[in-house]
């Protein structure tokens, strides 16, 4: 990415010191608002207050949307009520809700009391949807047409509603009872006869979601149908809003982050790594560390139970880390692929046996290669006897098979009991495969060495 000439902090500081507000407004015409906000985040708060006053209403609202949450919070505490109201009137309502949700309750209260009755009603409506549902990410700013409209009416409406709408490329057509009956793309309207009936032009087979659908479901539908906007209806099939693809990008990214965290034994955490406090991060990591520390004691217990065998052949101990490590890795490889398959390709219990046989094949192949390599390297590089080498390698083979099958099937089984597959991933599988590995190892050793 290259930009022709970048906006810098010095440039902003310069115009503010000179009180050259004309130039400031020009900057806001010229430069991208995201870049401007990035620079202005660093400015002292009273500067930003001045900017909010002298900028055009739309620009100051845009600026506010892209500022960091902590800067927004400070601003709200500094601005007067009428200023806040003016700001709110110019914000997109989904941006407004996102911002209020981020704020501590005392700041949210300031905002709500400053808002006009209409705005307050809109905010409360959007806040009433459960988190992670389609309702919680929809915007109510879209172009709505009536089935009785002509093309000319439609273009007038688009011009009237278009200033605030998130997108005008797709317009939604409702009946007199506000039921969603179809959609029409802007490019289909613009070039039609001005007295053609909208009802004759609409696409009635419109893909939509419901307010209480999960946002992941929305992401899947948008992806499946290659669309950029999806309308949202309530239980009565009345149109209440739209969801645009830019919101979905954020949803997808959050979901992936959550999955990656869970697979690595980190409980879901809101906010980015740098923004989260140490205590928040500790809280998200500590539970699994504790659980796994305790559960690993069972593995220790198994070792203690076979102390006699270890005392006779101390060399057996030196292979324990390798066996446990390989089992853990093999298991998490399998679980990772299956978990990703569940979220991307819709794997489920119906595929139980397919997954079972696939993992069995993969494990036999991987296990056999590891068995050969391991036997060779023990014989060539260590003083261990052939018998010991075989015990270790055969254990390795079984470890791989057990771990891969447990790793592949456990995520599917968690679906059955309606748990999140990512949450029981690698760490749990590691513990299970560790224990099984050691039991196989020592039993083989006892049978073959004595």
């Amino acid at each position: 990415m290259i930009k022709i000439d970048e906006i810098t902090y010095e440039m902003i500081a310069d115009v503010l010191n000179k009180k050259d507000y004309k130039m400031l407004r020009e900057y806001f015409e010229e430069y991208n608002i995201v870049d401007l906000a990035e620079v202005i985040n660093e400015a002292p708060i009273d500067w930003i207050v001045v900017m909010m006053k002298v900028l055009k209403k739309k620009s100051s609202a845009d600026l506010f949307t892209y500022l960091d949450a902590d800067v927004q919070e400070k601003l709200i505490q500094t601005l007067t009520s009428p200023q806040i109201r003016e700001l709110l009137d110019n914000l997109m309502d989904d941006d407004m809700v996102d911002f209020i949700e981020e704020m501590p309750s005392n700041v949210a209260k300031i905002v709500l009391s400053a808002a006009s009755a209409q705005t307050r009603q809109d905010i409360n409506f959007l806040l009433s949807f459960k988190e992670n549902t389609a309702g919680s990410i929809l915007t109510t700013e879209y172009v709505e047409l009536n089935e009785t409209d002509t093309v000319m009416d439609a273009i007038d409406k688009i011009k009237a509603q278009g200033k605030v709408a998130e997108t005008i490329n797709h317009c939604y057509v409702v009946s007199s009872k506000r039921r969603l009956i179809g959609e029409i793309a802007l490019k289909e309207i613009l070039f039609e006869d001005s007295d053609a009936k909208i009802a004759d032009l609409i696409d009635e087979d419109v893909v939509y979601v419901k307010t209480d659908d999960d946002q992941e479901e929305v992401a899947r539908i948008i992806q499946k149908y290659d669309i950029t906007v999806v309308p949202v209806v309530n239980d009565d099939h009345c149109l209440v809003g739209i969801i645009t693809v830019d919101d979905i990008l954020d949803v997808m990214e959050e979901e992936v982050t959550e999955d990656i965290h869970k697979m690595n034994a980190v409980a879901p955490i809101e906010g980015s790594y740098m923004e989260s406090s140490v205590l928040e991060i500790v809280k998200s990591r500590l539970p699994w560390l504790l659980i796994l520390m305790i559960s690993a004691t069972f593995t220790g217990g198994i070792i203690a139970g076979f102390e006699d065998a270890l005392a006779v052949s101390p060399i057996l101990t030196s292979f324990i880390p390798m066996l446990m490590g390989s089992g853990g890795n093999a298991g998490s490889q399998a679980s990772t692929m299956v978990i990703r398959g569940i979220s991307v390709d819709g794997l489920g219990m119906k595929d139980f046996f397919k997954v079972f046989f696939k993992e069995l094949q993969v494990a036999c192949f991987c296990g056999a290669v590891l068995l050969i390599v391991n036997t060779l390297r023990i014989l060539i590089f260590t003083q261990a006897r052939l018998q010991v080498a075989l015990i270790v390698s055969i254990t390795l083979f079984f470890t791989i098979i057990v771990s891969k099958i447990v790793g592949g099937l456990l995520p599917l089984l968690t679906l059955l009991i309606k748990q999140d597959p990512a949450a029981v991933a690698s760490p749990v599988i590691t513990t299970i495969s560790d224990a099984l590995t050691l039991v196989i190892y020592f039993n083989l050793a006892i049978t073959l060495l004595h």
Partner: protein
Amino acid sequence: MEQKDFNFEELARIIEGKNIQHLREVFEEHNIVDLALMVEELSIEEAVYVFRVLTKEYSGELFSYLSLEHQERLIEILTGSEIKGILDNLYTDDLADFVEEMPEEIVTKILKSVSAQQRKEINMLLSYKENSCGSIMTTNYVKLDENLTVTQAMEAIKKQREIAESISYCYMIDQKNKLHGAMSMRDILFAPKNSLLKDVMEEDIIYVKTTDDQEEAIHEMQKYDFSMIPVVDESQKLVGVITSDDVLDVLEDEATEDIHKMAGINPIEEPYLKTNSFKIAMSRLPWLLILMLSATISGAILTANEDILMMLPALSIFVPMLMDTAGNAGSQASAMVIRGIVVDNLGMKDFFKILYKEFRIALLCGVVLFLVNMIRIILFMSDISFMMAFVSSLTILIVLVCAKLVGGLLPILATYLKLDPAVLASPLINTIVDGVSLTVYFALVKLLLL
């Protein structure tokens, strides 16, 4: 959710009855993505029949939603002119994606059937490196001469709208095809009819180059909330645009790739169930082998301390716990930091911030684990001496700090060395922290217990 008022049985019945009119109506009425899924269930003869009777506008779209194997089989059977009819209506980026996946003889057949212009565009798209912006862009977009008036522009858009993937953004060029500006359809609609585009267009445009990595495009689109981004070549000439639907797919693929790499799986493109076992095994084997061999280091540490283990066999009980806890703590930290690198652009500049943050997190987690481990050994494991409990607990504390620092900082170092942080993740970190944890353990034992 989408409506389910049409099912496979009905489609099969219509095809069997050879009711061409009815079949065409079905394709006008219902969603093409759903229909494509049904067509995949048909026998190949039936599918060919569908393609022969459908009008061009639907057959092209239907074709683009079929799976690769179905596309391949269809191309084998259809005649040159039939193929041309289908491909004429495909967007060039879809066409290039599809050509890329096909075996050579199919590609030859396709290239023979398309128009010279299409062939040129396909070859251009195919010449870009995989994962570059050039490889995912489309050449179907609206470009306008900057010297047109708004009225003339509307005429030009009218002409281009059928082939353009989206008209929500139009791009302005000079005579030499250099990108000079952009305008949303909305702004064009609201602009004074007689003004020249170059006077009203947005000039601070965000764009990417054909050679940029596709992640760069996603990053920019996400940052600026764009649904489209223009792509230019080295001489600033406009050559294509990237649309949000392509970005969603890329985002999903990249996430899968990262998740796989973190689990020590080499990237694999097809869905889990469609990939054969041998291929899956090959993607998993390299890391299994590497980690099996590297775990020998931990084994060697154990062997080196055999005398101590013989003297105090109870020590071995804690070995699995120490190794597992270290591994988990390390991968928790690395997962969060790797995700931070992808999503929030963490980098070398944040090295000390991360160091300090992980240090504090580790201390807090470590103290809690220290206490819990002490207490449960004293309460439940009467045969372990107090000193031994203290040594194992202290080891946990130290190991946790090491593991979290290695896990948090190794990915950052990897980006600095231009290596992929995800590849260096959990498996490798595990090996390092395993070795560290055993070394610390035996050092403390020697210091405090002997």
